[in-house]
């Protein structure tokens, strides 16, 4: 059920909204950019980009507001492998 919603949403935004590694490196310590790790917690525990928050994909809907209070904040999302 949830996956249908996701698939529809992906179709809307695919191809846009990307951030390059260079920009991410440059702004790693920039507090105006929030980095979010959407991998499961175990992966986050093992390894993550410094300063990243952990918000597993499955919990995005339920916990995003608690973790990311500012709707206008710049957010960079990453997962595990090349997509």
């Amino acid at each position, binding site marked *: 059920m*949830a996956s249908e919603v*996701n698939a529809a*949403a*992906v179709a*809307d*935004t*695919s191809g846009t*909204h*990307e*951030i*390059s*590694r260079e920009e*991410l*490196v440059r702004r790693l310590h920039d*507090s105006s950019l929030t*980095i*979010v*790790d*959407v*991998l*499961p*917690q*175990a*992966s*986050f*525990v*093992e*390894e*993550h*980009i*410094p*300063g*990243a*928050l*952990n*918000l*597993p*994909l*499955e*919990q*995005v*809907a339920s*916990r*995003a*507001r608690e*973790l*990311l209070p500012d*709707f*206008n*904040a*710049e*957010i*960079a*999302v*990453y*997962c*595990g*492998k*090349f*997509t």
Partner: protein
Amino acid sequence: MRGQQAVALLHDLGYSNVRDYRGGIADWVESGQPTESATETAAPEPDPRATMLDGPPLAASQSGVAGRGPARLSRMGQFDKSMLDLVQQRSTWQLFVIWIGTILLSGFCYWLGAYLGKRGLLEGGVVVGADLKGFASAVYFSFVTATSIGYGDIVPVGGARVIAVAEAIAALLIFGAVVAKFVSHRQDELVSEIHRITFEERLDRVETNLHMVISEMLAITAMCEAKAPPNRISTRLESAAILFSGELRTTRDLLYQPRLAVEEGVLGGILASLTSALNVLADLLACLPPGFPRSQPTEITLERLTVLAEEICGECVPHSYTPRLVFWMDRIQAAALRLK
């Protein structure tokens, strides 16, 4: 894909400025950028941005990281360690060649002394010459010295004594290393064989236990459908769930930190059993009437089961597996969603 999904989801939730880092953690690590692990962020001054959502990190991941540290050699000096490394890196055969080389080189040195007109070796009081026969005698003397036999038919004099002492020490040490290497090689083989057998037995047990879990859950489902008393169902469900979560954890750790290579067929079998066990469990939970009294251990175990199962998917395990295994892993994740 997960990244894109997350971007889309966040967008739908009203976040206006979300972007996807396509390369993900794999690209990040590959380009040599630094990373953190949760044990580091748990330091006295945690970065406020690195908040963990789900409480303390999993114990298994932590111990796995800690257990990977280098073996400590506190009492052993740096010199001993480097010598050990030197021996460790050479094969038995290489060490043997070095031993022979030392003997031949020393033999050549004795002969060189004679060739340069120095008194090097005496055979029965007569100086050994610089001819071919003299060279043979020098090598022979070198062997007798290196193996600490020391017949005494040829004796070194003058500077040759220094070479003889150095040769004897070096050759004995190297020969000792050859023997030690030979013995330890056999021992290493035995140890790894024992490891392998234990590991395979553990895998067998995982499969057997999973089958038990499946049949037990089917039995409980039948009880449930026959409207058996809830307390009888509850206790059996509790023990089955605990056994299941133990085996699920083992499988998860196996996928995240493989200690030994597992045959694809064996791993595929385990993953397939896991999938059907999860589905059977979901059916069972669906059969239970609303408001069914679940004990606290059952609740906790079921929660843990769901988390563990969600962590098994082709994209989230840190190693790449064959498409067939990835297929099963994704099925497991899909089954886990049913448990929610």
